[in-house]
């Protein structure tokens, strides 16, 4: 029970244990704990950031979707308007074309009728002259009676 050399032995053992603990036990364990704490802190921060990013992205996506819908609606509207316009224009053009064609037809018909009329007139003149020759039984001096003939032709 008295103090003796054991104290010295234990003191040396104590110093050696503390030294060993300080060199080879405490630092690696403490470093591991602190490194893990840092990792966890970083991880939590990252997950917070990711959640925020996700929220932002969702908001952005919603906004873009809305915008795209509005744009699409605008495009459809414009297309409908344009379609109506094209149809209207086409109808107008067709109407004009129709009128033109009809007018051209009338003109041609008129032209042909005039030609036919002229021909008929000429033939009628020839027939009239022939008829008159037969009636008079003599040849009519064409030069002498040309005034009469012309009058006749004009009357036809």
């Amino acid at each position, binding site marked *: *029970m*008295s*103090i*003796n*050399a*054991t*104290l*010295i*032995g*234990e*003191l040396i*053992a*104590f*110093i050696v*244990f*503390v030294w*060993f*603990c*300080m060199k*080879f*036990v*405490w*630092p*690696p*364990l*403490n*470093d*591991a*704990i602190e*490194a*893990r704490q840092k*990792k966890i802190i970083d991880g939590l921060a990252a997950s917070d950031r990711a959640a925020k990013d996700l929220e932002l992205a969702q908001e952005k996506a919603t906004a873009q979707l809305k915008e795209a819908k509005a744009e699409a609606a605008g495009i459809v509207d414009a297309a409908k308007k344009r379609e109506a316009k094209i149809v209207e224009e086409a109808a107008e053009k067709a109407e004009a074309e129709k009128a033109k064609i009809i007018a051209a037809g009338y003109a041609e018909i008129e032209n042909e009728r005039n030609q036919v009329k002229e021909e008929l007139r000429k033939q009628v003149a020839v027939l009239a002259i022939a008829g008159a020759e037969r009636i008079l039984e003599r040849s009519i001096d064409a030069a002498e009676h040309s005034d009469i003939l012309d009058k006749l032709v004009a009357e036809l």
Partner: protein
Amino acid sequence: MAEEVTLSGHIQHHLTNAKMCSTDSGLAFNKACSDSGFWTWHIDTLAWSIGLGLLFLWIFRRAANKATIGVPGKFQCFIEMIIDFVGDNVNKTFQGKSTLIAPLALTIFVWVFLMNLMDLIPVDFLPAFAGFVGETAFGMDSHDVYMKIVPTTDINLTAALAVGVFLLMVGYSIKIKGLSGFIKELTLHPFSTDNKLAMVFLIPCNLLLETIALIAKPFSLALRLFGNLYAGELIFILIGAVGLMQLPLHFVWAVFHILVIVLQAFVFMMLTIVYLSMASSDNH
């Protein structure tokens, strides 16, 4: 009467360390060392304490080798719990930075705890086993084989820890405050005056008071741990001597002792941190 002698002899036997000393005729043991004075070694205390210290270092070194930053295993979790507990107490109590305080506190806490834990092994088991081995293997009288398995019931061990802490206290004081600062702390407090003549009388008083306060710290450290464990061990031995009734008594005392052994280890650690914190802070 005869039984009483046997009982006190039994108790005495339990409370005696195995001794070793060198005499003129070589190494001597136990009773041959009764007058060897200071140069006696308590080989049971040394063996158990160093063995338990190595066990502590081996367990923790193993954990340190396998320590991972990722998901820790259960063993690593357990070790880290202790590290965290000790580190927390050190950070809360010790002002300033030191790479020594935390490992010191950890060593004291776990080592003292392991040594105290030996108290929970039934008191007769290992001494009886040692006696058996001594009798059969070495031809000794089993009453001459001593085996005190709780190193903290040996004042030499608790004193060694306290001396170690005391040396650190003095070392930190001198390191932080300088030798003159340390001497000033011992001589110029708690009484001080501007009167130079009065100071001449006050300085010896201060020195006496402060030295007693300083010395009292390692003494209280050593004696508190020793006293608690010695008393606990003594009661275990007494309980072990009362026959069949010892079973419930032993259980109750052992349960109570579970608290005591952890508490004493914790108190030793905390007081070490507090004393070193006081030694390394300037605000006296």
